[in-house]
């Protein structure tokens, strides 16, 4: 199985994810979502829901997304499609598109817009909420033995997404 982890959470860059493809760059949470969406369109499947359970996009500047590419997984194939058709996971597609809809309802909070203590907590919460999906993908908490690593925020890269406002 092949995994990709997209995240703008600086804590994720301290950790080790052996054998995984990583897109750990300081972009906006929306950019993370867009990167994940492009993979979903290319047939990858989300391993967890792309929205938080309590924070809205203007309340949490960080986002991590874990996706899997596995032809043997339970992808709902579009059987009548041409042979060249990428098999899109409908659940992932539906959830990522609905999540993007939610991202449009309020301005996205960018990391540099929030105070440092707030950022550290948000990064911690993002990591905590990712623990289960990461663990289910076989992650063994490498680098977390000494607890949550020190938090070093970084400068945001320019936004690349089609519908983000810098």
């Amino acid at each position, binding site marked *: 199985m092949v995994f990709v982890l997209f995240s703008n959470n600086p804590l994720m860059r301290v950790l080790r994810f052996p054998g995984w493809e990583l897109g750990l760059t300081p972009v906006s949470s929306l950019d993370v979502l867009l990167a994940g969406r492009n993979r979903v369109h290319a047939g990858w499947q989300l*391993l967890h829901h792309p*929205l*938080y359970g309590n*924070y809205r996009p203007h309340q949490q500047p960080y986002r991590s997304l874990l996706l899997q590419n596995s032809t043997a997984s339970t992808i709902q194939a579009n059987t009548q499609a041409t042979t060249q058709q990428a098999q899109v996971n409908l659940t992932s597609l539906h959830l990522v598109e609905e999540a993007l809809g939610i991202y449009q*309802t309020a301005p996205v909070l960018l990391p540099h817009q929030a105070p440092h203590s707030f950022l550290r907590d948000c990064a911690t*919460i993002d990591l905590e909420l990712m623990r289960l999906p990461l663990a289910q993908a076989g992650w063994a908490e490498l680098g977390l033995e000494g607890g949550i690593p020190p938090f070093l925020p970084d400068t945001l890269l320019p936004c690349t997404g089609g519908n983000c406002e810098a």
Partner: protein
Amino acid sequence: MKLELHKAPVRSLRFGPQTTLENDVLVINQQELQALLLEDPRLAAVTVDLAHPGESIRIMPVKDAVEPRCKLSGGNEVFPGFIGGVETVGQGATFVLEGATVLTTGRLVAPQEGIVDMSGPGAAYTPFSSTCNIVLGLTPREDVTLHEAEATCRMVGLKAAHYLACRCKAAKAARVEHYAFPPLAEAMAAHPGLPKVAYIYMLQSQGLLHDTWVYGVDAKKTLPTLISPTEIMDGAVISGNCVSACDKNNTYVHQNNPIIKALYARHGKEINFVGVILTNENVTLADKQRSSSYAVKLASMLGVTAAVISEEGFGNPDADLVLNCVKAESAGIKTVLVTDEYAGANGASQSLADSCPEGTAVVTAGNANATIVLPPMAKVLGDPAQADVIAGGFFGSLRADGSMEVELQAILGATNELGFNKIGAYTI
């Protein structure tokens, strides 16, 4: 299972030399309570304050609300897995200090909202402006991890609630409520002709500060399960959910679940209320699929024709709500969903992050993004520094005159998805 709730009303609170209930006044020995709570080595400091309905007091950020209860008989103790052992609760008699609430406050993370105003316009939106509140200000030691800090604050609230009830349990209850939950075989045969109805009770279970505990077990690690409503009344379900104040189900609303109450009110008359199914709201899609299938399967095994489904939180739990609804309806179970809405401050955005054509019957607890201006209060209990975070615009904004414009999201229990309040929404 049979449970009696012995309810002793509390109309006022004061500090005194001995914790006791005198003529509906809950007298609290402040030092004794503080000393008990400070037995937890993870706590650096505890303050105890009192807040009454109508006072010019703002309490924030509130982590949890707990109703003081303890067992009179029936074995074990309330809050199994925390105060009580892990043995079964929900039978015998339980003493309740009705009208009193323990509110735990203290900073765990930023941002963290959870406002209770005891008077003014904000008071209309929180159930806890009409209870007499014992406000615990909690400061965990600095070397305690966030996980430990959350666990400490959670435990302290339960401990205080149990202590208060225990010290007063000799008092005579003004009223005794009787609840029975028969064995399945009896329940199935009872009330022939009445439709069998279940309650699918969704619990937030996504990780730190987004968790719920059942008999001491982290709900994300459970499969959906059957539980007697009387067990819920004895505190089998505990909140570890500390964000999104408006629609987190704090421990108090679990203890007093209004959907269970409403189903009991019709039981034997119009419906046969045959079960409560606890299910979780996890982050992984595999868990969401499994839990929704399993919860609906349990409902099918009970042979119910209808179910009320309640949500906790918003955003990704909307997907669990929709999965539960679609799977139940396709199994021939008619559903009513209880949720709240995030339709934007202007009310014009899409309310839920997910939807399904099967969701034809929805009760809403209102738009959490609607804003309200909270005037300044004479006293702030808890951590006033949190006002800075609120001032930062994450949940609202602080005005020059000390008033705050906040979304209902910041007010504890404002859009409770167990349908605790009368608030709702409609389309203009």
